């Protein structure tokens, strides 16, 4: 039997959050954590609340904190996260909890929108596609694949402290995705919007973001590139 300790909070009935324990029969299978949640909801307690959609690690719905580490429940096998018998599941840290494992992601999305995450090009569009060499396109690898699951930003102490002013690893990864795109012409405008003590420079290179990213992306490296661009621009 797997011992699961779940973070519970219903704003309508609970004064404070609490941990609830479930003894779950997994029949010895190495399930994904999402499968365990589905099992609990179907067979133990229908009121357990979490987000999920694709169940294959591409939609970013089920970012959770599992035994102390952020990740996607649908691609985290028990064998990877459970040491001993116990699985502790909490919501992503640092964001307001709406209910159980569901957090309010408004601040996270607001930081994403702040970097103007869309291509800007001042010249008229050609009749076919804008040309881009494979080498130029390769600059976007490791950046465009972000699924906005928020595992990185909610593991970042700088984001915990300043979620309203520090863009955070996810937003900055996207900021660099457009700075790095040979088709984008708004580099100067993008950099000037980021050029303040908080937006970028609150990153202290802790690299929690790199450790938890379920897609294997490296926001710290992208932030480093933005810093260099900002510093080169200043001199």
């Amino acid at each position, binding site marked *: 039997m797997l011992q699961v300790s779940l973070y519970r909070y*219903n*704003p*309508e*009935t609970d004064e404070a959050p609490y941990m609830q324990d479930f003894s779950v029969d997994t029949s010895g299978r190495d399930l994904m954590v999402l499968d365990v949640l589905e099992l609990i*909801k*179907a*067979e133990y*307690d*229908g*009121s357990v*609340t*979490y*987000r*999920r*959609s*694709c*169940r*294959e*690690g*591409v*939609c*970013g*719905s089920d970012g959770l904190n599992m035994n102390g580490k952020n990740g996607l429940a649908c*691609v985290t*096998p028990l064998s990877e996260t459970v040491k001993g018998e116990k699985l502790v599941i909490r919501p992503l840290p640092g964001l307001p909890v*709406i*209910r*159980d494992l*569901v957090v309010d*992601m408004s601040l996270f*999305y607001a930081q994403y*929108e702040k970097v*103007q*995450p*869309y*291509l800007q*090009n001042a010249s008229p*569009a050609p*009749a*076919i*596609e*804008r*040309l*881009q*060499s*494979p080498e*130029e*396109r390769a600059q*976007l690898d490791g950046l*465009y*694949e972000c*699924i*906005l699951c928020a595992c990185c930003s909610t593991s970042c102490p700088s984001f915990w402290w300043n979620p309203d002013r520090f863009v955070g690893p996810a937003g900055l990864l996207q900021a660099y995705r*457009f700075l790095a*795109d040979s*088709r*984008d012409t708004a580099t100067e405008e993008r950099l000037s919007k980021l050029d303040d003590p908080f937006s970028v420079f609150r990153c202290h290179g802790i690299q929690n973001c790199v450790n938890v990213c379920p897609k294997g992306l490296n926001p710290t490296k992208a932030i480093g590139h933005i810093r260099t661009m900002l510093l080169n621009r200043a001199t």
Partner: protein
Amino acid sequence: MRTISFDGVIVGGGGAGMRAALQLAQSGYKTAVISKVFPTRSHTVSAQGGITCAIASADPEDDWRWHMYDTVKGSDYIGDQDAIEYMCSVGPEAIFELEHMGLPFSRTEEGRIYQRPFGGQSKNFGEGGQAARTCAAADRTGHALLHTLYQNNIKNETVFFNEWFAVDLVKNQDGAVVGVIAICIETGETVYVKSKATVFATGGAGRIYASTTNAHINTGDGMGMALRAGVPAQDMEMWQFHPTGIYGAGTLVTEGCRGEGGYLVNKDGERFMERYAPNAKDLAGRDVVARSMVLEILEGRGCGPNGDHVKLKLDHLGEDVLESRLPGICELSRTFAHVDPVKEPIPVVPTCHYMMGGIPTNVHGQALTVDASGNDAVIPGLYACGEVACVSVHGANRLGGNSLLDLVVFGRASGLFIEKSLREGIELRDASQTDIDAAGCRLEALNARESGEQVAPLRQELQEIMQNHFGVFRTGEFMREGIAKLDDLRARVENVALADRSNAFNTSRIECLELQNLFETAEATAIVAEARDESRGAHAREDFTERDDENWLCHSLYHGEDKKVSKRSVNFTPQTVETFQPMARSY
């Protein structure tokens, strides 16, 4: 109940919904998207291999008419030729727009969009060999497309109601659609969202089957709402089983794997598709490949201790090709099959993937019904695009890469048409309180019910009936048994009980409402599948093994109110090319 008003409301925040929304938002009309998940969590995100379109990058001579020929043939001749003509000819413009919006397509040495071969593709109307027509962003094309569309909706300040769930259609006294009842999932508030144009872009319903590549959220919400409101459903027997779902997990492995040179093997290591489709081999139509796989398994040549799957061999392509062209597949295979495709083949099995049927529409996205004399009639106020719609470009079998093109082209077309209609003026009478109450009664009943069965076991029962009785191969007798089981299940699903009565983020309530939508979709599928006594495209009858053009070269139309099936003509009159006449279909 509060009322919120818009010029256009789009239900569904996937590719089709966001493309339609973008078109309307750019026109300045007051536009809202209602999505039960944050838009980038929609199932479009899982599309992998690409978007098929004759942009003449891989082959400068490529021609949209060749793409049209392939699509008509792929549909087993019940795709509407005017709609296929529109999709294939407008496609390049729609693709270039996406590129201009920033979609990070993979590139050729010339700097153009990379295109890979996919199943069912040919040059020169089937005479010129395999084409490479599927535009790709590695094997994450859906993700790249969906995020690009969301980003451009942010840019154009579209209003999003994220994590809102549409419950049912509101119709006025004239039978026109004038919006939906929707729940804000976070607070539980129910609102009447009033609109001059209501666009269904709610996606598919693969979750009617126990084994599916589809996300948990693909529960046929649009089909459920439409059928309850008296809108007919077209070609619902046509479900695509994708040849390569990962054995056990159901997660998709793109056809692009075979496009890049991968192939299927049985337990003897034989490349068996050479026997079933000597020319196209592993790149035959999906229905053909899926059936061949099932036959291999049934004839004892399946892999594994139970002989119940086959394998997809990729290791001969080399690590460089796999990591650059198919990085997502490598990741999925390692996670869900515990197999590294660089070294070993991936265990795969045909898995429910796509609903070819849906709400019948014209090329402008206007939903259609039939009048008393059997002629098409537009349903005022209602539009549909993407997987929930049946325009029909896929007919009895969809070609790989055509779903993304369908959703972009017809999302765009719906937006363009609604913009024009709004400019000319749309006059619909307001819904009365009685009309609004009628739309709210299903939710009302669920909230009031004190007893009943739980949602999870009912859903499982439904999925198993569909899996067992309406799979890749079908027989009349066995389907009639399945229909009887569904008859028994209907009242139980209608009386499903809420496990949780809270207002705040109550996913139990949503799952109950979704289950009822799944049921409507499944029942339509079952009844029409039993009625179509021929084999065509994805619909393979063991008791009627031949295609019957005399009786069934037509769409099926299912009417939910009396559970009757009627027939509707297929369009054979494209505007700029000659009709493609039905021929024997072989690959």
